């Protein structure tokens, strides 16, 4: 596993992160949409607005939120396609961005410490986010999300400063 990962080749993050991104995006959009929408039928029931107004509102709502839901469905796929990481003995390189692309190289000798974090949904899917901290300013903490949990820990161990590794 180690040999296959620390090979200086570009890797994509786990494809399950696409599903997770879609669930999160579509879910939160629907939740917001329904919350915003709920007062309308209640007002209609109470006789505040006419049936026609309600129909127009529903159509508008469906169109707007349909668009957002579609976006939330396709965006994680695009995001995943353009997120790549490359690990070698000298450090790690993360390439991301769909229109504006940024490739950031983090030499292992500059890694101050690393975190692996998992949210509740990430845990459900066995995913994790690796955060690398450097002494820099803009690149003080660089995250790589959507990694398989085991790979995240493997990368963390690889990026641990030498003296800490010896201590462990």
């Amino acid at each position, binding site marked *: 596993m180690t040999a296959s990962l620390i090979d200086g080749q570009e890797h994509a993050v786990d494809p399950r992160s696409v599903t997770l991104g879609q669930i999160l995006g579509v879910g939160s959009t629907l939740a917001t949409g329904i919350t915003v929408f709920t007062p309308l039928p209640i007002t209609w029931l109470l006789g505040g607005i006419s049936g026609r107004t309600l129909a127009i509102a529903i159509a508008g709502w469906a169109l707007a939120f349909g668009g957002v839901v579609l976006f939330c469905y396709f965006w994680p796929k695009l995001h995943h396609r353009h997120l790549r990481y490359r690990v070698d003995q*000298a*450090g790690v*390189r993360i390439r991301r*961005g769909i*229109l*504006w*692309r*940024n*490739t*950031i*190289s*983090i*030499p*292992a*000798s*500059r890694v*101050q*410490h690393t975190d692996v974090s998992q949210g509740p949904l990430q845990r459900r899917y066995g995913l994790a986010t690796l955060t690398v901290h*450097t*002494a*820099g*300013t*803009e*690149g003080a903490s*660089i995250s790589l999300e959507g990694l398989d949990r085991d790979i995240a820990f493997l990368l963390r161990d690889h990026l641990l400063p030498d003296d800490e590794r010896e201590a462990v």
Partner: protein
Amino acid sequence: MMNAKPSEPRRLHGLSWVFITASSMKGFVVPAIVVLIFSAGGTMASYQLLGGMVIIPTLIGALLKQAIYNYRFDAEELVIRDGILTKKERHIPYARIHNIALVRNPVHRIFAVASARIETAAGGKPEAVMRVLSIAAVEELRAETMQRSRVAATVDSDAEADADETEPRTGARAGDSVLLQMAPGELVRLGLISNRGFIVVAAASGLLWQTIDWDADWGSYYAGIIDLIPSWATWLIDPVSLRTPVLFGVAAVVLFFVLLRLFSVAWHVIRYHNFTLRREDDGLRTEYGLFTQVSSLIPAERIQLTTVRATLLHRLFARSSLDLEMAGAGEAGSDLEQHLAAGGARKARQWLAPLVEDDRTNALIREVLPEVDLDSIQWNPLSTRARRRIMKRSVIALVFLTVGVSATLALTPVPVSALHAIWLPLLGLPVTLLAATGWVQNAGYALNAHAIFFRSGLLTRNITIVRFDKMQTVALGESPFDRRRQMASVKVDTAGAATAGHRIDIPYLDRDVAEAIVERLYVEVRGTEYRW
């Protein structure tokens, strides 16, 4: 280590609250004056507002701070206790204390007190500021620190020799060498070059403007002036023609700029009075100030980034400014580091030299970066297509501007033909072409065995130097426009980078060149170990 017992806690001088209040009120002085002046009619109310909302809480805070703040001398460290709601106890090992610097302004001198700054190798920000101590207390602080540090050092050397730790010093030594001393003439030049004081003079002019009675009988003023000036110049003062107001307008503008520069000169002469840069055992030290004397240590190994800056005016005088970015921190991961980071000390840019002759710049840079020789750098140009990219952007902007202006002229009742908008591209294109050409010619990057260099700017020219061992991450950026032209930019991140100021951020590179630079930096950084 049992030989030195902790001392009784010491307190601040009895008048500290005055100085604490004064120092926290500093930032309020200008707004307070503005409030008082521009609240005509409700002056009483604004006095009360000012008193109730600013002065009284500050006073109470200062009194509380004086009551709570104390320090004691432990066996190996100076312990400072502070904090009104959140109690803070800071331990500063004597061995870490590099200097106890004093700031004494005239008011301090009247009361025989001083504001003591405890400096460690962190650079940038002092570790602690004791505001204020009596002179006797300062003497005790210095003596105790020096003595106990020596005891600690002796004990230390038995256990483990640490080359980094030196005993604290309280003044310049005979062996120190002066690298730069700015004569008054040089400070005058610095004042002329810098634009300090714009706000003050602008505000003063604004007030003056308000006090002028525009409905006054100008004719009688003119008559009075005619009596005062020699007869050959009386034609300038003509009550009926437009000549006189124009003349006065021009005179006012000239006066404004003269005042601006005069104020700037005065400010710099006072602030940077006797600016001295000298080399000491463990770094460089700058000292300056006429009323408020400042002394700060620049630990050479903490310098993250060095910039040589020259504005148009600098170049007129054949001078440059050199400044440094420091990362304030002890050993990485220590409490000290986090403390300093929380205090904002990581964002410190400080002078190496506010102004230095061009032919001495290189020598001064070599004092902090011995492996750098600015004179022998082989600058690499940006992409050959860089100018075209800049021009394309400018042309698009000009087209929008021209269309907008001509539409405005056509649609509004301004008695100017819409065709006059054509002057914008006619004049703008040659100017942008010249500017773009000049900018691209002056921009460039270089790599030597130890550092990366980037220069840019047309009117204000900057050269930034970052040593490989101070680099953190390297980023290759591609905007959609970059990708269309197979170009990219390279950006180097360092610790303690300020938000403003020149950085290593090289735009308009050919993509393969950019990739080669990133690859080279990645390899170079791999070979070095980062030390704060």
